């Protein structure tokens, strides 16, 4: 994963990258729907990637065939969620507020990859840009921006008291 405007991220060592992969995988495995989709974390040239293996149940158009737009939506939202959570010092579980996804090319029935760029990590919110591709990373098939809310201590206590 890279952080926009933070050059320190680009010189992180291989050991650090390995730990980041393990951290992301652990966060993904806590999400039942991510496990169902079979999302797996990989180490790419420029940082951590999330891989979505293809299977027939993910098809949205069986004539092309092409992946369902909602499957790419899930890859983008879940990658953004894990990126925002791993970046948070307290590893708070974020709530997805909104997502806006642009479909750039047809998503073929094959392996899809996603990488996250944190546009802004604030105290209460995180805005994450996710890029998806198949085969050629320079030919993205979809990009998405996801806005997440990082719960404050006060909000967590309110939840506990059932307000």
């Amino acid at each position, binding site marked *: 994963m890279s952080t926009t405007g933070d050059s320190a991220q680009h010189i992180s060592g291989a050991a650090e990258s390995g730990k980041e992969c393990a951290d992301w995988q652990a966060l993904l495995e806590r999400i039942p*729907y991510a496990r*169902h989709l079979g999302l797996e974390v990989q180490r790419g040239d420029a940082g951590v990637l999330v891989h979505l293996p293809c299977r*027939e*149940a993910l098809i*949205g158009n069986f004539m*092309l065939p092409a992946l369902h737009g909602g499957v790419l939506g*899930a890859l983008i939202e879940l990658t953004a969620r894990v990126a925002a959570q791993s970046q948070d010092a307290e590893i708070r579980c974020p709530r997805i507020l*909104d997502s806006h996804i642009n479909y750039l090319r*047809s998503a073929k029935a094959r392996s899809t990859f996603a990488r996250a760029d944190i546009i802004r990590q604030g105290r209460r919110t995180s805005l994450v840009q996710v890029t998806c591709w198949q085969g050629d990373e320079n030919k993205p098939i979809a990009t998405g921006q996801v806005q997440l809310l990082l719960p404050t201590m006060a909000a967590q206590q309110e939840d506990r008291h059932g307000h």
Partner: protein
Amino acid sequence: MAKPNTVQHSNAVATAWQFTEQVPHGRELGMQVVSVDQGQVCMRLTPQSWMFAHEDTKEICTSVLYSLADSAGGLAVFAGALELMPIATLDLRMDYLRPASGDQALLAVATCRHLTDEVAFIHCDILNEGNRELLATANATFMRNTQGQQFHAGGRGKESA
């Protein structure tokens, strides 16, 4: 331009309905088309535990709502256009208003807000079936008459120009 008759209208919607229910990802999530009435599409999804966002809460993952909105939105293009043609999602924006509880079915209500020769603008609401609480809203833009495969479902598809 000749106005298609009502028989063709109902055929186009029926074929799109049938096509929607055959989509593998929709079948996996258990999406059902409830109704298509005067351009308004209603779809339903019964949550299952593998759709959850957390181990400990029964909150449904937002991405499941996203898939439901995309499917209902696609069918709403045909419900609005009343003709069959290949379409593609250009973009989709979701706002998640409330967490979706896993113990209630989800309903998606989608309508075509505006149609041009090339583009369809769709709005979709995702509701709790029980109390009709609004859980999420979606706005999507679909491209009409995309290149590539022509629309066929059960051999009754129509070639688009």
